[in-house]
C-alpha cells in the first residue's frame, strides 16, 4: 500500500472536520454558501457584491497533463488514474524563485521536521530556486496564529486565508495588508501562469472579494458529503442499502447493541446526509415565485432533524460527540458508518485496514413522498493571499504558486508531493510511488501544509488501490444524476459575509441539542426566528435581489 497522501485526496489538504464544515455549509448548515464565497466583504452598506459579480474571472485553459485511465466528463465526473503516470512532463522552464519566500500555512498531519533537518524540504527548495520558509500552524490553532502574526504587522509573503475558521473582516484586512492581483490574473492575463489558468472559474470565485482577485484558490473536490459504511458490519443486515428510512432505522437497530453503533457521532453530518434523502434543498430552495426558502426552514429539514433525533434516542449513534476521527472505529467495526468528503471516502478505511473498501450510500427516498437529491459541495478550501510588495516580488510569488499548482502527474507535482526518486520515493511493481523510510517522517506534514495553500484541480487517484479509484469514479457518475447545486453559488450577500457565520452559531447549537434530546423542535423554530431577525431575512432579500433568472426552481417531491 502507498504511504503517500496526495493532493487529490481531500484528507491530504484539509482537516476532516474543517472540510466537512465547508461541505456542510453547502448543504444543511445554517451558513449559506454565499457566505463562504464572499469570504469577508468590506462591511459597507453597498459592499463588494456587485463589483465581485462583474469581475472578469481568470480565463480557464485546461491542463494538458498525463492522460487519465478513467476520463472525466463535462457533467463533473473527475478524471481517474489507476496507477501513477510513468513520465513526468515539466510545466515550467525555470525555477520560480531567486530569493527566499516566506509563508503562513497549516498542516493537518503531524508537524514536519524543521527545514534544517528535513532533506525533502531542502530538495524542494532547490527545485523552486529559493528557500520556502514556512510557518506551519497546527490544526486546530490556525486562527490564533493568523491573528497574532497579523497583529505583529510582520507578515510573511504568503498567507493562507481559510474560508471557515472565523477570520473576521476579511475584506478590510485584504485591502489594508495584501496585494490586489486582479491585473495579473483577470481574464487572459492569467495565461502567463498556465497552471493557474488550469484552475476552474468556480475555484477562482473563492479568491474574489470586493471585486478584486486576492490570491490563488485552493481547489478541492466539487462533491459534497458521502456516507460510507463498513461492509463487514452492514452485510449482517443485507448490506448498506435501504428501501426507505424505516428500513434504515430497522437495520441500524439490528446492528447497534451498545457496543456497536450504526453511525458516527458528527450528528450534523449525519443530518446532512439523511436530509438529502428527505429532499432538503442545497442551502436554499428557489420557489416558483423566485423567492428563497432557507434549507433549515423547510418541512423536509424538520422531518430529517426529528429522524436523526430518533436515531440518537435509540442509541444508534456513537455517543462520544467529541470524537475527532471515526474512521479507525469504523474500520474496527465499533461504528458502522462515517461521513466523508466526496466519493473518495470509499478508500479511507484502507489506512487502518488495507483489506477494507468502504461502501458508499447513495441518497435514497426517505419515504414514498420524498425526492432524494445529492448536495454538491463548495469545491475549494480558501485561497492564498500575497503581502503587499513591489511588482518584482509579486511576479516571483505568482510564479511560485504557479509552480506549486502544477497538475497531477507533472514533474513539479511529483517533486512537491513525493520528492526526488531514489531519495524520497521508489516505484513498486504495480507502478505506484512508494515512500522511502525517511520520507514517511519528512513528507506528510510538509505536503499537507503545501497542499492547503496551493493545489491543482483534483483528480481521483488512490495509490495502490485502483479499484477504489474505479469505485469512486463510478459513484461520482451516480451522484451527479441526483446532484443539486446551491442556487446562490457564486452570489454575494453583504450581510451574509459580514454577519452570517456569527448569527448562525445559535442555530447550529440548537440543532445538536435537538438531536441529543436537550431541546425540542419548538426551540429550533425559535432559533430560526431569532436568526431571521438578526439578519437572516436580510440575507434572503439580498440573495433574492440578485438571483439570476437561469437558476431553476428547486424541484420538490
Amino acid at each position, binding site marked *: 500500500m502507498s504511504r503517500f497522501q496526495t493532493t487529490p485526496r481531500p484528507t491530504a489538504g484539509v482537516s476532516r472536520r474543517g472540510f466537512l464544515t465547508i461541505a456542510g455549509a453547502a448543504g444543511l448548515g445554517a451558513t449559506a454558501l454565499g457566505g463562504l464565497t464572499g469570504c469577508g466583504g468590506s462591511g459597507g452598506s453597498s459592499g463588494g457584491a456587485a463589483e465581485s459579480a462583474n469581475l472578469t474571472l481568470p480565463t480557464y485553459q485546461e491542463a494538458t497533463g498525463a492522460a487519465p485511465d478513467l476520463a472525466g466528463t463535462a457533467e463533473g465526473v473527475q478524471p481517474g488514474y489507476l496507477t501513477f503516470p510513468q513520465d513526468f512532463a515539466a510545466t515550467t522552464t525555470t525555477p520560480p524563485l531567486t530569493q527566499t519566500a516566506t509563508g503562513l500555512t497549516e498542516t493537518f498531519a503531524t508537524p514536519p521536521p524543521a527545514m534544517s533537518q528535513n532533506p525533502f524540504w531542502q530538495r524542494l527548495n532547490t527545485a523552486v530556486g529559493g528557500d520556502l520558509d514556512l510557518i506551519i500552524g497546527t490544526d486546530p490553532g490556525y486562527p490564533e496564529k493568523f*491573528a*497574532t502574526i497579523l497583529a505583529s504587522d510582520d507578515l510573511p509573503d504568503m498567507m493562507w486565508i481559510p474560508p471557515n475558521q472565523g477570520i473576521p473582516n476579511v475584506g478590510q484586512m485584504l485591502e489594508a495588508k495584501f496585494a490586489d492581483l486582479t491585473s495579473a490574473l483577470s481574464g487572459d492575463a492569467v495565461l502567463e501562469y498556465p497552471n493557474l489558468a488550469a484552475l476552474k472559474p468556480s475555484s477562482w470565485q473563492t479568491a474574489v472579494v470586493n471585486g478584486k482577485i486576492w490570491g490563488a484558490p485552493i481547489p478541492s473536490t466539487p462533491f459534497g458529503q458521502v456516507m460510507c459504511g463498513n461492509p463487514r458490519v452492514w452485510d449482517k443486515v443485507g448490506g448498506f442499502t435501504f428501501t426507505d428510512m424505516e428500513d434504515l432505522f430497522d437495520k441500524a437497530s439490528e446492528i447497534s447493541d451498545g457496543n456497536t453503533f450504526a453511525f458516527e457521532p458528527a450528528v450534523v453530518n449525519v443530518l446532512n446526509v439523511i436530509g438529502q434523502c428527505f429532499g432538503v434543498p442545497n442551502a436554499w430552495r428557489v420557489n416558483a415565485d423566485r423567492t428563497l426558502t432557507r434549507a433549515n426552514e423547510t418541512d423536509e429539514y424538520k422531518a430529517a432533524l426529528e429522524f436523526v433525533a430518533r436515531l440518537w434516542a435509540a442509541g444508534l449513534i456513537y455517543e462520544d460527540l467529541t470524537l475527532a476521527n471515526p474512521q479507525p472505529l469504523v474500520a474496527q467495526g465499533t461504528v458502522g458508518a462515517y461521513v466523508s468528503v466526496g466519493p473518495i471516502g470509499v478508500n479511507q478505511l484502507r489506512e487502518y485496514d488495507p483489506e477494507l473498501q468502504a461502501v458508499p450510500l447513495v441518497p435514497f427516498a426517505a419515504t414514498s413522498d420524498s425526492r432524494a437529491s445529492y448536495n454538491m459541495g463548495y469545491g475549494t478550501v480558501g485561497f492564498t493571499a500575497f503581502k503587499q510588495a513591489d511588482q518584482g516580488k509579486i511576479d516571483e510569488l505568482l510564479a511560485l504558486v504557479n509552480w506549486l499548482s502544477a497538475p497531477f502527474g507533472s514533474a513539479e507535482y511529483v517533486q512537491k508531493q513525493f520528492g526526488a526518486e531514489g531519495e524520497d520515493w521508489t516505484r513498486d511493481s504495480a507502478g505506484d510511488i512508494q515512500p522511502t523510510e525517511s520520507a514517511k517522517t519528512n513528507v506528510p506534514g510538509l505536503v499537507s501544509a503545501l497542499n492547503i495553500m496551493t493545489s491543482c484541480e483534483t483528480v481521483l487517484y488512490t495509490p495502490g488501490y485502483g479499484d477504489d479509484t474505479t469505485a469512486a469514479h463510478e459513484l461520482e457518475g451516480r451522484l451527479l444524476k441526483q446532484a443539486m447545486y446551491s442556487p446562490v453559488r457564486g452570489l454575494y450577500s453583504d450581510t451574509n459575509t459580514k454577519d452570517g457565520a456569527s448569527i448562525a452559531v445559535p442555530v447550529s447549537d440548537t440543532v445538536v441539542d435537538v438531536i441529543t434530546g436537550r431541546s425540542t423542535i419548538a426551540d429550533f423554530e425559535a432559533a430560526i426566528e431569532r436568526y431571521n431577525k438578526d439578519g437572516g431575512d436580510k440575507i434572503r432579500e439580498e440573495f433574492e435581489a440578485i438571483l439570476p433568472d437561469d437558476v431553476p426552481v428547486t424541484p420538490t417531491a
Partner: protein
Amino acid sequence: MARDVTPSTRPVWKEKPSAVLSSTKAVVVALTTAAILIPMLVVISTSLASEDQILESGGYVLFPTHPTLEAYRVLFRGPFMIQAIGVSAFVTAVGTALALFTTVTMAYALSRPVLFGRPVLFGVLFTLLFAPGLIPMFLMVRQLNLLDTVWSLILPGAISAFNFVVMRSFFMSIPRELLEAAQIDGASDFYVLWRIVLPLSKAVVAVVGLFYAVGFWNAFFNALLYIQRRTDLYPIQVILRSYVIRGDSLTADQLGVSQVPPPQSLQMAIVMVALVPILLVYPFLQRHFTKGVITGAVKG
C-alpha cells in the same frame, strides 16, 4: 441501680466511633478509592489490550488478557515523541526552577514591611492576575526575539500572580520576631530568606513548585503561538494534542506500519505518556501538599 447518664466531658470527636459509622466510613472511602483507581486501571489496561479483547468488551478493558506494548511502540516509533519529551522535560525543570526563584524572591520582598513602594509594587503584581491577552503577549515575545526559542515556552510563565499570593501569605505567617532576631544578629535579607524563611517554608515551596511543574508540563498553547519554524521545539503536549484531536495523524501511512493498533489502545497510551511523568512527582511532594495549600489559603 440507676444508670449513669452523666454526659461525657470529652468532645464528640474523641468518642469511640460506632461500628455503623466506622463501616459507613470504610465503604465510602473504598468506593471513593475505587472511583479513582478503576478509571486509572482501565486506562492502563486498555493501553495494553489487544484489539480482539477491546472489541469483545465494548471499547475498554479492565484487565488485559494478552497484554501488548504495540500502542507504545507505535507512539515512540517516530522521532517526534522522544524529542518532544526532551523539550517538555527541559521546559518543566528550568521553568519550574526559574518560576520558583522569581516567586520566592518577590513574595519575600513584598512580605517585608520595610520595602519602599510596596503598595505600588503589589498593585502592579495584582494586575498579573488578569491575563494580558493573546496579541500583547505575542508582540512582547516577538520584540524580545524569543520566537522560535525554548525561552518563549518558559519566560511567559515565569511568574504566576496566584502562586505569588499563596507564597506571600505563607511568608507573612512566619513570626516577625524570628526574622528580626536574625537581623539583630547581623543577617542580611538574603541570608534570612535562605537560612530562615525557606527552611520554614518547604511545604509552600513544594506545593507552588508542583503547581508550576504541572503547568509547564501541560502547556501547549505557547508553543502553538511562539514556535513558528522550529518544530523540533514542540513540547510533548502539542504532539499528543495533535494525535488526540486529529486521530488521522495516527494512520498507518504516517506511522509506517501496515495496520495501526486499536484506536482505544493508542488513546490510552497517549493518556499514560502525558500523565505518568508528572504523576511520578506527586508522591515526593504529597506530605507537603495539604499543609502548603491550607496554610497559603487561610493565612494572610
